[in-house]
């Protein structure tokens, strides 16, 4: 970033303005709308009035909001470490470019082409309790069929599994990119010193993977924190609130109950968490290499 060309603003602005105006209008302005709108309510006449902390006070007193917070936290505490471990494993699996590995790399990225809403539809049908092929497979193996999405105890675990089916190949790319940058010479030197595969992984690979791992951890958490499509399309938050993630709660406030103030208050809570995650990411990334 140092020693660029010094040009007057009149020239630089031509390059910067379109993108920065877009970001200001469609990324930053909505944040302001959420933060301010969380303190407003809508009268029956349609006019917007200032209500102070009322939306937030109602959220705090609302058990369904706390259930959504709880479900969202539980979901994220499991899904993010799980996806990172799996995608790291996949990246290591496809690291050495032996025959057919390019095919497997592409194959693992293939679920990227299935959108989250299609993933939801696909797995709603695959895991359909009576007609679905997964229960068909279980029956043919002599195992009892499972309720999956319809089981109060299984719905969240099913959601975690399906989100991971879609996600691990995507995050694998970032970790694979990091692994490809680990200098071969370091491994060779460690091998000459007699380090085994496990020792080389711990002392050579892992320290150099801190940046990509930190990036994936935070970006993955942000993505999963906002999961919406499967909940909307399959479970509608059920059964008995077992999959009521916060984003769905915000959607319902805005479009089912038409309570704009509440919807924007929940959006502010979500943005606050995302902001904390972003700060954390900047910190983790800055610790190395500055």
């Amino acid at each position, binding site marked *: 970033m140092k*020693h*660029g*060309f*010094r*040009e007057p*603003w009149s020239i*630089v602005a031509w*390059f*910067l303005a*379109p*993108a*920065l105006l*877009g*970001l200001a209008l*469609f*990324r*930053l302005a*909505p*944040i302001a*709308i959420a933060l301010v709108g969380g303190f407003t309510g809508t009268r029956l006449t349609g006019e917007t009035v200032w209500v102070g902390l009322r939306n937030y006070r109602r959220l705090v007193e609302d058990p369904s909001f706390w259930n959504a917070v709880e479900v969202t936290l539980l979901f994220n505490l499991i899904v993010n470490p799980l996806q990172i471990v799996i995608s790291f494993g996949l990246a290591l*699996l496809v690291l050495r470019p032996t025959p057919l590995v390019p095919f*497997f*790399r592409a194959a*693992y990225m*293939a679920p990227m*082409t*299935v*959108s989250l*809403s*299609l993933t939801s*539809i*696909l797995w709603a*049908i695959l895991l359909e309790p*009576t*007609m679905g*092929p997964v*229960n*068909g*497979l279980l029956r*043919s193996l002599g195992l009892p069929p499972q309720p999956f999405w319809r089981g109060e105890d299984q719905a969240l675990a099913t959601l975690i599994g399906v989100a991971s*089916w879609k996600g691990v*190949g995507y995050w694998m*790319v970032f970790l694979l*990119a990091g692994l490809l*940058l680990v200098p071969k010479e370091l491994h060779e030197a460690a*091998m000459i010193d007699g380090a085994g595969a496990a020792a080389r992984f711990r002392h050579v690979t892992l320290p150099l993977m801190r940046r990509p791992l930190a*990036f994936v951890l935070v970006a993955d958490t*942000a*993505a999963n924190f*906002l999961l919406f499509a499967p909940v*909307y399309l399959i479970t509608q938050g059920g059964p008995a609130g077992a999959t009521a993630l916060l*984003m769905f709660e915000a*959607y319902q406030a*805005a479009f089912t109950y038409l309570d704009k103030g509440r919807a*924007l208050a929940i*959006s502010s809570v979500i*943005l606050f968490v995302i*902001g904390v*995650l*972003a700060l954390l990411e900047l910190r983790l990334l800055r610790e190395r290499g500055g």
Partner: protein
Amino acid sequence: MSGSPARRLALATLRYAALVAVATLLLLPIYWLVTASFRPSADIFATSSSFGWATLVPERLTLAHWREAWSGELPRAVANSLFVALATVALGVTVNSLAGFAFAVFDFPFKRVLFAIVLATFMMPFESIVIPLYVLVRGLGLTDTFAALILPEVASGLVIFLFRQFFAAVPKELYEAARVDGASWLQIWWKLTLPLSGPTIATASLMLFVHQWDAFFWPLVAAPGPERVVVQVAVARNVTLEVANWGGLFAAASTAILVALVPFLLLQRFYLRTVTAASER
């Protein structure tokens, strides 16, 4: 790498077994969905509830579900989504590469602050602002327009970052030589650096295209009318309306998957390369 030949062979076998197992888990569901869309309804249901060879290998094939899917709102939805995605790619590559160029090449006041804001927006997933953005877009009177679907997705912190990383790696002398030859900065961006940045353009295009083609939450709220329906929303509507018509749903879903597969297969080899290059610096 180490150990006796027998041990090495065992490890390689184990590795390929794992590779195949994961690939099966990831690809088989997609394969099943696409092949089932070509089967008569009776066969879909009969072979899925009792699993066997016939679950995976269709015996009878039919185009009935595809004909049915394509006679509804799907063609309009595909056209709308293609238009939205391609417009976003064209505008997005232009706008974001301009900004990436400025951050890589120029020195200007507030550069660090502005770049930090760009990075911050790229760490902020789009879904987090869907509801306030809806309030904004409705206030501007843009609901159910192409503008509402395209414009919010054009400027992208991640794409600006990718271009900046690429342009920053171009030797400074190249820019200096072009300046001495009397080229304007806009000419340098357009004629010198953009032609060099093929892989970055490919990756950015793939990201923007797939992002728009896959978009569900935002179109669901920003364009709920039938005129501007997009492909993901159109497919999802089949689920709620006709639960028992798996064939039609599968044909529509296969359409959406296959269209996304084309740019993926064309551009995926650049994708890993660009992500690697961007994380290097």
